[in-house]
């Protein structure tokens, strides 16, 4: 790594650490300002003021807010994210258990989106104004128009009920978690749900970016040299057109995680999104903090990697 790039990365990492501290402080404050508390969920219908007070004391919620934050942050720096208020499990192990399914879902959705959307975008740009272009735009519009929870349920009704081809929910049948085919069949609908939404943006950006590049002089020169159309588009134009697409893909990571929250809930997918939703409804503060810290770190890392990816795609870009 060249020196300029190294100091750039270090600077960014420094900012990232500060950002995480800021995010954790804001989140901690917001959570405690929100009405309600974990005791109502922990006790359920047999709630009593006495039991509630006892729980608050046991969980340390009766201490001053600043002290609670400092205790949490001190432990977090040492790698201890605390224990879930609800089940008493270590937060780190809850997140570790859920990370695999979420990565599988978001990774699969991203891969699906890119693999399908880039060629569709190219086709729409090259065949601008034709039926292909209209079809591509229609697919994109379809993807951005439907919320994931609705799309997910519609896909379940279509592919698990009307056409009983795929299982409606879960990661795999019990006892068949190691069976790749079973896992793949369970993954089809959630991956499609999340991927379709993502695909729309990638497709639209590929199309518009490629159209712009195709108008440039060097493309005309390449064509004038007698290069085949496919070679001009795929080798010369697309590479430059991909820079904004990479930005969109990088910036879409938070959206993917956000989308995964709903998709995971609909498909009973045991990932981080569902963990987060459950924790918010149950006011499981340590889990909310832990999940957000990890997701925040992933998003910051993704943004950094996106910036670094520019240098690979376009050697003219360099960081000082």
């Amino acid at each position, binding site marked *: 790594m060249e020196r300029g790039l190294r100091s750039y990365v270090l600077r960014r990492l420094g900012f990232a650490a500060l950002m995480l501290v800021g995010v954790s402080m804001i989140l901690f404050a917001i959570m405690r300002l929100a009405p309600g508390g974990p005791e109502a969920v922990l006790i359920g219908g047999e709630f009593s003021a006495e039991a509630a007070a006892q729980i608050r004391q046991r969980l340390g919620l009766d201490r001053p807010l600043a002290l609670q934050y400092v205790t949490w942050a001190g432990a977090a720096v040492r790698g201890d994210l605390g224990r879930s208020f609800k089940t008493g499990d270590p937060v780190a192990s809850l997140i570790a258990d859920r990370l*695999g399914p979420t*990565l599988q879902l978001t990774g*699969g959705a991203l891969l699906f989106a890119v693999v399908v959307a880039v060629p569709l975008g190219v086709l729409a740009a090259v065949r601008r104004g034709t039926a292909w272009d209209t079809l591509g735009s229609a697919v994109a519009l379809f993807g951005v128009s439907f919320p994931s929870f609705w799309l997910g349920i519609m896909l379940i009704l279509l592919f698990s009920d009307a056409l009983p081809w795929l299982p409606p*929910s879960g990661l795999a049948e*019990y006892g068949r978690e190691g069976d790749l085919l079973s896992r793949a*069949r369970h993954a089809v609908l959630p991956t499609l749900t999340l991927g379709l939404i993502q695909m729309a943006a990638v497709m639209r950006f590929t199309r518009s970016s490629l159209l712009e590049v195709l108008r440039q002089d060097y493309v005309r020169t390449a064509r004038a040299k007698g290069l085949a159309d496919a070679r001009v588009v795929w080798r010369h134009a697309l590479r430059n057109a991909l820079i904004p697409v990479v930005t969109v893909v990088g910036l879409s990571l938070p959206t993917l995680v956000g989308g995964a929250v709903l998709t995971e809930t*609909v498909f009973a997918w045991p990932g981080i999104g569902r963990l987060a939703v459950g924790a918010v409804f149950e006011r499981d503060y340590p889990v909310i903090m832990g999940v957000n810290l990890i997701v925040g770190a992933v998003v910051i890392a993704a943004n950094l990697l996106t910036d670094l990816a520019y240098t690979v795609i376009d050697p003219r870009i360099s960081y000082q």
Partner: protein
Amino acid sequence: MIQSIVLAALVVALTLTGLRPAAAAGRDMVVGLSGDATSLNPIIATDSMSYIVEWPVFDSLLELDQSLNVKPLLAESWETSRDGLTYTFKLKKGVTWHDGKPFTARDVAFTFYSVLDPKVTTPHRAYFDALAGFPELTAKENPKRPEELAVRPIEVVDDHTVRFRLRYPSGSFLAVLVNPRAGIVPEHLLKGADLNTAEFNRKPVGTGPFKFVEWRRGERIVMEANDKYHGGRPALNRLIFRIIPDGVVLVQELRAGGVDLMENPPLTEVARLKQTAGLKVLVADNTSYTYFGWRQDLVPFNDVRVRRALNHAIDVPSIIKEVLQGYAALSAGQFSPSSWAYDASVKPYAYDPARAKALLAEAGFKPGADGVLVKDGKPFSFSIRHDVANPTVKDTAVIVQEYLKRVGVDARLEPLDWPTFVKKLFASEFEGIVVNWTNHHDPDPFAYTIWHSSQWKGRNFAHYKNARVDELLEQARRTAVVAERKKAYAEFSKVLMEDAPYVFLYFPQQVYVTRQGYEGFVAIPTFAGVYQSLKAVRWTGK
């Protein structure tokens, strides 16, 4: 990541094969739940999902029959002293814990002393108010240990005999010794442990018909048949509780074969499910009820004419028909029609909007310019808070609002999430509320805490106060003679209905859907009562 790519590639490449997902094996049962458990320790657990899941793992001393009477489970028999202050239980012999250790009377004493221990966080403690030494053992400041008391409330007579001593005769004492609130836990695994946080709460060991196998948080809880179960090995091999939060998806799983039993499907789906080949619907009464209430001490709710008018203003049968598709019993007070304390002579107020308007006029309300009634320059306008996540309650609140509007009362709906809602309830920060509240199969624990005036800081958050009601609740609490309790509760129900402190709406029924071929369910009319019978459920394949 490599695995993700491989899987993603498989997903993309996979042609839709047309295969149905593998149906759950006949001798297992997959139970679909809408949420995860909190704890699998019956002393600590108090939420509905935990109750359902810990039930098959633990046995209690007694269990309920279909008429809500108690019958022996871990206890073989019991004797009550003449003064009603001593209960001596003979325990079953040869019962073992899932780890092979013998179950003895010491486990029983350990369990209930743990419930009484103020260091242990459990709302179940209040159920044992009648035990000798209860105030001393549960005191906030310097609680006593059992050995410091002159009279031991729970005495281990021998390995298979345990004796409970009460400070007053209690009609509810036997009724509170049943699952899921009173499962017995093993002393040898928990002595000296902090019960609030013990690893046991996540990996339980009981004496029940099913042994705990695994709990994958948010995904599933698995248990297998206990071959050495004292009541005979259950017919099902395994119970797999799958957690599927979305009701529509849960129904699809049932139809697709991924789930064999689910509770409370969206009620609009029940008719379709009844028509679905291979599925059957079971319906059970419940003790919990939904009501429209208000702060009794606020103007104008402190006027009995206004309260009665609100009762006349709402057509409850139409709510049962429209919102619950008929799956509810009309409520006439605190007790469900399946409770022995229910008095059929007490009738709810008839829907009579003209009478409601007349009563409101009598109370001094006159129509205002915008159609809302006005008294002393103030419009009859208030907020109704409710739990946003309960669709039945939400729809009920909307219809209540509409009926109130028809008689000139302006109600604003304020949906809140459950933690916020409960906190506001117990702080008495509300005007009106629509709530579905848990109840107990015995009348005392909830009737007393909801309606007795000593409980304003507890469940009597609506601040109801009636000296005669206090008296009747005390009478019913401090006798073990059923006829006396029945008489006291009958009068209590009459006074309550005359007082009209709520619009008692309905007792929602519990609707279960299961696969044809599973037989042996017994629908006990209390919360989640059907789960008690899982030990007797078998697969017939028909």
